[in-house]
């Protein structure tokens, strides 16, 4: 059996409120699996437990109970992070360092040998399209460029799993598109991606599977196509039809005992699903 990239079983996490006897339940009996090579989107409103879940996966927080593993290794072990790259939300990098120096610093944290480190840094700058800006200080980078450097440092160790927290937050559409393309490129290389985002349209474009958290509970999980399908309804999307074709199709549906619910131009439905699932 192939090991899951991320395997969370029965994880709960509560944060006590200081000086009171109350506490906040951030994550409640969470079961989650991310398979190798897939792009998994973790969605949820603010306070749903997304950040807590990511931090548990990265070993930054210990769960109160349950188990979290990365490729079979418990996340509390430092060694479990050998195979992980992480890009936090709106990361800070010292402005006085160049792109080259920044990646070298993070590479040293993986104890990469100097020759290998230099080669890897050059490769990554090329991958994220920043080779020409390698010697520029980060203080002069745009938000999109900083995110790409962030992605590069997350990939410095050739990880098998990349965790991205709001990778396109604050980035303009062009920059977002570049990051989306990078994510798809990672997928093509067989790298597992776990991303957390509020930008549902972008999630829909790149993710294979999604999980929706609400109040610390995983309320929906599954493949995008399956989740977005409404069970007893079908869509027939056609193009270049005549003005009569629409009326004829409606007649066919009625004569077979069916019901025409709506006849309109195609549009997205993920946002509707998201709001329905998280409505209190």
């Amino acid at each position, binding site marked *: 059996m192939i090991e899951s990239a991320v395997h969370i079983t029965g994880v709960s996490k509560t944060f006590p409120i200081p000086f009171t006897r109350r506490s906040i339940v951030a994550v409640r009996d969470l079961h989650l699996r991310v398979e190798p090579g897939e792009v998994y989107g973790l969605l949820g409103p603010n306070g749903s437990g997304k950040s807590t879940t990511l931090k548990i996966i990265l070993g930054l927080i210990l769960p109160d109970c349950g188990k979290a593993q990365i490729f079979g290794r418990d996340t509390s072990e430092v*060694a479990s992070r050998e195979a992980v790259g992480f890009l936090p939300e709106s990361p800070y990098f010292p402005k006085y360092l160049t792109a080259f120096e920044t990646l070298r610093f993070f590479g040293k944290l993986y104890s990469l040998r100097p020759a290998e480190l230099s080669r890897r840094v050059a490769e990554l700058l090329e991958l994220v399209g920043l080779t020409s800006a390698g010697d520029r200080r980060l203080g002069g980078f745009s938000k999109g460029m900083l995110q790409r450097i962030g992605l590069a440092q997350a990939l410095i160790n050739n990880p098998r799993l990349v965790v991205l927290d709001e990778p396109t937050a604050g980035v303009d559409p062009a920059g977002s598109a570049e990051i989306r393309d990078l994510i798809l490129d990672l997928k093509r290389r067989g790298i597992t991606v776990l991303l957390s985002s509020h930008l549902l349209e972008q999630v829909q474009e790149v993710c294979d599977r999604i999980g929706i958290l609400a109040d610390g509970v995983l309320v929906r999980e599954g493949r995008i196509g399956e989740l977005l399908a409404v069970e007893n309804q079908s869509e027939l999307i056609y193009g270049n039809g005549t003005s009569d074709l629409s009326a004829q199709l409606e007649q066919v549906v009625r004569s077979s005992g069916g019901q025409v619910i709506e006849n309109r131009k195609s549009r997205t439905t993920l946002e509707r699903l998201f709001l329905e699932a998280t409505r209190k």
Partner: protein
Amino acid sequence: MNARFFSLGRVRAIGSNTFTELTRLRVFYVFLLFALLLIGSSVVMARLSFQQEFQVLKDISLGAISIFTSLLAILATARMLPQDIEDRTVYTILAKPVARSEYLVGKLAGVLVLLAISTAVMAALFFAALYIREQSALAETMRQMSAAPPEQVADALREIRDSTFHADLLAGIAAIFIKAAVLASLTLFISTFASSNIFTVVVAVVVYFIGHLQGTAREFWLQEQGAGWFTRIFLACVALLFPDLQLFNLNDQVVAGATIPPAQFVETALLGCFYVAIYLPLSVAVFARKEL
């Protein structure tokens, strides 16, 4: 890649990064400039106190070096963890196979290198100022005593040289650095459980003052028989909880001309290393379970 064992390479990378970051702090340069001005101006102040020339120069210079390194140790260390948590840099680093112990040791190493370099720069200026004054005093004395017997001139010149340089000044300066290292490791420990930068600074400054009284409390506790039980418990708590920072203050004795035996300096240095060696694991113990 070796993520399992304590890696000096990773510690060095974090330490070097910390050092570079600290040297970019504007407050560091303001403090350093202030300390250098104070040392330089002590030459003028010394002149105003006529006979006390060298004593004032040494007192003010060593005092400036002491206060600057102590302040730097506290302020630079106190901001490290809260700043990294606020910037989310701590996530970027600890999401890699970096043990929390390596992270803390690297941070402290960066601060210690900064303190060592600052101490060395200020000591160099101090010695330069002392040398200039010594040469001036020697020349003046020889001019004034040109008609005196050679033995008296030799005595007078020897007295001037004895008042300026002696090896124990280096011991005094080394002890200042050791005190700063103890303060830095103590501040790091406080910052692992503190809620903010300002809280850490306030607690560290309070500990700094109490640390200079700890010796008195300790000796009173160990020797005084007549004190009430409450007083004894209070004194015991002060002695056990707070460091004795006065033990690292050799300046007064050094300036007064007393010799510091090598064995005693080594004992003081070892005590300082013991402090750092204990505060660091305590910091790791608290930080290991800190939820980030």
